[in-house]
């Protein structure tokens, strides 16, 4: 394609008006390399997306048959009794994730603001290092920390403890992405605000953070999606519960815990329910992320 184009363009220029370099036709080797590289790029995209589609399809195949009204509205039945559902776990997961987000998002964004706006120094480097290490701490260890911080004090398991554990895991991801997104905001935008007599803290909150909103939200959603399926940190914090619980200071069921318990059980009925639970969990995460994206897009102006 490219060589026919360049020929016609060259033909349009009258001879001897512009001195023309005679361009040799694009060699076979170059055309081959071009095709090969495009091919490799497409292949890697497929390889990256394949596991996601595979998991989703398999979950639907295995789980959709067990999702029914009872599954979505009832609590688990004792072993041997058919039916029952995970309604309490669905609600429990939502409560725990809400607590985690309420705690983790403000801290994460706050830390990100510090790193980008005030942290171009040694203190910032320390926070960055600590946050990267925290990001690499195994989730079960974070669970132990929440156990020590909340469960030991309350003397029992609770949704709050689970939320704290997940919040700790959210903070480093949110902090580092927020930092990166704020750094992308041109200095000229901050200067524009300073030039209007807007104070520094106000500029940071109302101008810099606002300009970076969509990126910051991407970071929050990444962190949210990452912790939404966590099981290990909930094992000895939220603990799980076979019954309804509406109090945030009582042991609370969570989808991931319920899936774990059911999946390692020896009963076929529970296995089927575990698949259904996994499908519900993934739908909840996709739903939450999509809802936030749509809400953000609604608030965005044309051309922004």
């Amino acid at each position, binding site marked *: 394609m490219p060589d026919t184009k360049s020929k016609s363009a060259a033909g349009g220029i009258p001879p001897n008006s512009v001195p023309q370099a005679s361009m040799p036709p694009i060699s076979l080797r170059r055309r081959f390399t071009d095709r090969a590289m495009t091919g490799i790029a497409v292949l890697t995209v497929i390889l990256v997306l394949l596991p996601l589609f595979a998991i989703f399809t398999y979950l639907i195949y295995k789980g959709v048959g067990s999702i029914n009204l009872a599954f979505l509205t009832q609590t688990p039945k004792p072993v041997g009794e058919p039916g029952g559902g995970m309604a309490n776990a669905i609600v429990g997961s939502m409560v725990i994730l809400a607590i985690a987000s309420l705690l983790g998002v403000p801290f994460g964004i706050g830390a990100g603001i510090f790193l980008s706006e005030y942290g171009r120094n040694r203190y910032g480097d320390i926070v960055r290092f600590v946050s990267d290490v925290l990001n690499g701490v195994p989730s079960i260890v974070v669970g132990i920390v929440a156990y020590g911080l909340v469960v030991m004090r309350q003397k029992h398991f609770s949704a709050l403890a689970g939320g704290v554990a997940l919040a700790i895991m959210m903070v480093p991801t949110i902090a580092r992405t927020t930092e990166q997104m704020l750094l992308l905001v041109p200095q000229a935008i901050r200067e524009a605000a300073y030039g209007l007599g*807007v104070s520094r803290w106000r500029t940071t909150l109302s101008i810099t953070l606002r300009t970076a909103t969509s990126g910051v939200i991407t970071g929050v959603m990444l962190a949210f999606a990452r912790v939404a399926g966590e099981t290990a940190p909930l094992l000895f914090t939220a603990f799980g519960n076979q019954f309804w619980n509406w109090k945030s200071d009582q042991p609370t069921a969570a989808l991931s815990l319920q899936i774990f318990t059911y999946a390692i059980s020896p009963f076929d009925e529970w296995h089927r329910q575990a698949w259904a639970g996994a499908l519900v969990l993934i739908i909840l995460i996709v739903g939450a992320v999509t809802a936030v994206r749509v809400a953000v897009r609604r608030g965005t102006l044309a051309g922004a």
Partner: protein
Amino acid sequence: MGVGISVEHLNAFYGKTQALFDVNITVLANHATALIGPSGCGKSTFIRCLNRMHETIPEARVDGKVRIGEFSVYNGTSATQLRRRVGMVFQKPNPFPTMSIYDNVGAGLKLNGFHNRKQLDEIVHRSLQSAALWDEVKDQLHKKSGASLSGGQQQRLCIARALAVQPEVLLMDEPCSALDPISTGKIEELIFQLKEQYTIVIVTHNMQQAARVAEFTGFFLLGKMIEFDKTEKIFTNPSDKRTEDYITGRFG
């Protein structure tokens, strides 16, 4: 109304590098004053010292006396208060990208705690009119983002935004360098009208522009103010050889 500016023995530094050496200048109220000179000669640093924008850069430092009207710039007054009286327009148009046209113009007032909707409407209207942008955007005030406008419109939006806080002095740092000749013409016309209400200091690389818009012109070289006089004098009969070399293009 505009107010005059007086600068005495101004020195500015970036870390250990000195960018301005003992600058002295008196700017008359309600006039336009142009600053010319080669790149890196300290023009921008100089006007950034007038609204204390210089100090937002880490390790930057200033000493000397600057008075804007009755206001002493480096003595006891806060930078934010000063900047409400000394507006600034930057080299590259920098509207707030996530805000509507209306919010861009109103930003300075809103973020400083002014929320009277009716008055805000009026000020936004008046500012956009002063910046000669009203007719082009009046139907999309709330619908369109400031960043969706053309470059020239964006710069006029930035001027409107600066005017909305009702400053006494307007600093313009090469406001037309990113614009085409037609937009430049519009902004120059604007400067002509704005002089009646504001004191304008404009940095420019375009000597014709300086000659067109300003009554006074200062020539900077290597951080020093070489000559400051009536524009006519600078361009027809400069007293310093270096000024002459620069404006006739014989420089360096």
